[in-house]
């Protein structure tokens, strides 16, 4: 088995709201009750993970103008859940996704600094932008920002938060601040002293050129979708190469793809379980939904066990709102058709195969080995694990894979320090008062 001297970083994503959570499984529990968050966070801490990660939702998805009803939906607000989790965990980092489009720097910087104090230096912020006016209908600001401005606002937002986090001197003296930029003109006094980590850890998620540049300039961790070795290596090289122009070292940014895993006693067992999970994730109704998302048409009468529709997608239509669309629908349809013809797959089988993102499938030994290889090949610095089950989906990984990683020296055997920055091997930011 491969060994590496570069230890990996591990984080856990709470599998709440998405179409990959298998809510029909007998062991599936609540995605709302605090006990679910407590279970997963404590499991991740038992596994010595770097951090526990929560996504964000600001508008329920709609499909054909009606609220989408097939997937797990409904979640509590992240920063409040994490503040409560700070009470029942001791070392693990606590990361919240909070968008920069529908918040204001003063308030959010204060909430994040508060979480850092309440957790003894374990706070992280995944800074994202919100996609559209659809989400904006829930907010005072509405959907006023085009794509380019979303990122300039995000960059200025993070920079402004950092200015606020630096307003108290390290010896605890508050000083006034004034920020007058393109998006924000604010001044006054920040109410929270410099937090235990100096600044909460900043995470960036997203894959666009703007997103990569933003991450290279400002983020401590980048959360990516590149869960295969090939795309991972290309992404890793690209983003790490962007750091130098901001005067940053390669080790100042951790690259962590979000990945799924399926374990079994043997590789064959795991493959069988993985296939079962895909069938649960892509119900006949969900197969039609996936089809409609690409085709942009009402296909409610289509037989999921029959072939793909003969008609072409309507590239101008958008059946689903509240979810980020990926790729050109005509290209996607062509790819799906080729796949379906080549393998003789039904609509549902095609969707299962085309949309599958099960990154690591195998026995604990196989999965451990692949994770180690992935990091050794410079395809990532670690992983954000996305289990299929709430809240017990990480138990097996922590019990069976983590010990194998530790045996090989590929993962820590104890927490080295109290803060998330210490887990990630990131220095405390220099005070720039």
């Amino acid at each position: 088995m491969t060994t590496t001297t570069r230890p990996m970083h591990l984080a856990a994503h709470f599998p709440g709201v998405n179409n990959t959570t298998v809510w029909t499984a007998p062991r599936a529990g609540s995605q709302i009750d605090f006990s679910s968050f407590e279970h997963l966070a404590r499991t991740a801490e038992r596994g010595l993970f770097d951090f526990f990660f929560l996504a964000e939702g600001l508008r329920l998805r709609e499909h054909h103008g009606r609220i989408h009803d097939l997937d797990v939906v409904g979640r509590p607000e992240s920063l409040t859940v994490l503040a409560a989790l700070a009470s029942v965990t001791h070392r693990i980092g606590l990361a919240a996704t909070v968008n920069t489009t529908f918040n204001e720097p003063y308030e959010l910087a204060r909430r994040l600094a508060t979480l850092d104090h309440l957790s003894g230096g374990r706070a992280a912020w995944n800074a994202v932008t919100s996609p559209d006016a659809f989400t904006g209908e829930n907010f005072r600001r509405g959907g006023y920002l085009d794509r380019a401005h979303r990122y300039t606002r995000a960059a200025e937002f993070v920079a402004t938060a950092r200015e606020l986090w630096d307003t108290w001197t390290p010896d605890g003296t508050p000083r006034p601040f004034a920020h007058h930029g393109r998006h924000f003109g604010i001044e006054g006094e920040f109410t929270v002293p410099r937090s235990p980590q100096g600044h909460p850890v900043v995470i960036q998620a997203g894959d666009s050129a703007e997103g990569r540049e933003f991450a290279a300039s400002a983020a401590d961790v980048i959360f990516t979708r590149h869960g295969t070795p090939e795309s991972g290596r290309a992404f890793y090289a690209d983003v790490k190469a962007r750091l130098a122009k901001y005067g940053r070292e390669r080790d100042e940014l951790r690259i962590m793809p979000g990945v799924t895993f399926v374990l079994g006693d043997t590789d064959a067992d795991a493959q069988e379980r993985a296939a079962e999970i895909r069938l649960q994730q892509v119900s006949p109704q969900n197969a039609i939904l996936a089809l409609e998302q690409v085709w942009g048409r009402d296909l409610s009468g289509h037989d999921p066990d029959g072939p793909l529709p003969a008609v072409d997608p309507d590239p101008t239509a958008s059946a689903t709102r509240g979810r980020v669309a990926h790729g050109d629908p005509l290209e996607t349809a062509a790819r799906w058709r080729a796949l379906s013809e080549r393998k003789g797959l039904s609509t549902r089988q095609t969707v299962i195969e085309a949309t599958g993102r099960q990154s690591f499938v195998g026995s604990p030994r196989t999965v451990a080995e692949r994770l180690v290889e992935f990091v050794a090949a410079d395809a990532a610095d670690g992983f954000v694990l996305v289990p299929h089950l709430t809240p017990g989906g990480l138990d097996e990984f922590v019990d069976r894979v983590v010990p194998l990683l530790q045996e090989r020296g590929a993962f820590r055997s104890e927490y080295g320090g109290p803060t998330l920055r210490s887990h990630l091997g990131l220095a405390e930011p220099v005070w720039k008062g």
Partner: protein
Amino acid sequence: MSATAPLHLAAEIGGPPRYDPAHYIDLARLAERGALDFVTLGDSFLRPGLDALAVLARVAPATHRIGLVPTVTTTHTEPFHVSSAVATLDWVSRGRAGWYVDVSTTGAEARLFGRRPAAPADELWQEAGEVADASARLWDSWEDDAEIRDAATGRFVDRDKLHHIDFEGAFFSVRGPAIVPRPPQGHPVVVVDGTGGPAARVAARHADVVLVRATAPERAAALRAELRRRAAAHGRDPRALRVLLALTVDLGDIETAPEPGLESGPPLSAGGSYYRGGPVDLAELITRWHRGGAVDGFHLTPITPGRDLERIVNGTVALLQHRGLFRTFHPGGTLREHLGLARPANRYAQERGRA
């Protein structure tokens, strides 16, 4: 008001800024040992200190029964975020959350956000009322049984039980529904300091608990009667309003005050009521006002939380309990149960039922 109506007691645990959660956990546990209905934690964007709602979320798993009521302001915040955060506090505390509604009146606060100038209190409280209204609708936007997990049809939720609120106010609009499912209490408990004019209007319409400031029982009784009359005018059950006297207390080193009562110290703020004396005399005062039917209870703000809250719980409350005037344990699990307030019906479920 019958003299046997239950007495409600609450305490503020803020004070000079502290940044370690253990401080707040200790105070909340102390109040919980005294079986108080709830603790409040004041907040503003100007006051040095941590975000109050987050602090009480941190306190929630470290306590079991005590109600947790942070101040969350409505002037420079997003109503959708406010409603989500308060609902989440209710989830993480398993039904013990409240929301002390307040506004930001100063230019200094406005400059921290740079989005709008300071505005008159009338306007800000009108907006606060809209935020309370929109929040209550968002809390109802999921019916209690909206999550169905129907494997046979593949449906996780029954979308007929999820509702756009389509709130259009003078200050903002919210489409809805909420992201957070309906919280355990249905609606977390809304607390408003209803002493001032514009705040009293919001309190009568939206609050479950109203704090009033008065220096004589007759004045407090009149304020309560007026609040109830206005609540009834809004179509509310006036008995579902708890009116607590807001009292700043300094239990100092004085074991017994020569002149117990509200007049024994200088008022701390305009219209504020202030008590300086010993814990036993405070118990006498509470008994007298409550038996006289002036108020439903008291919200006590200790001058020095660590010292005075200990004296309130181990002195004043212990004596009230000994005399059978205050409960010795929390018979229920939620803050609404402590306050004797029913879990609100869901307006959308009711509308559907009528349709």
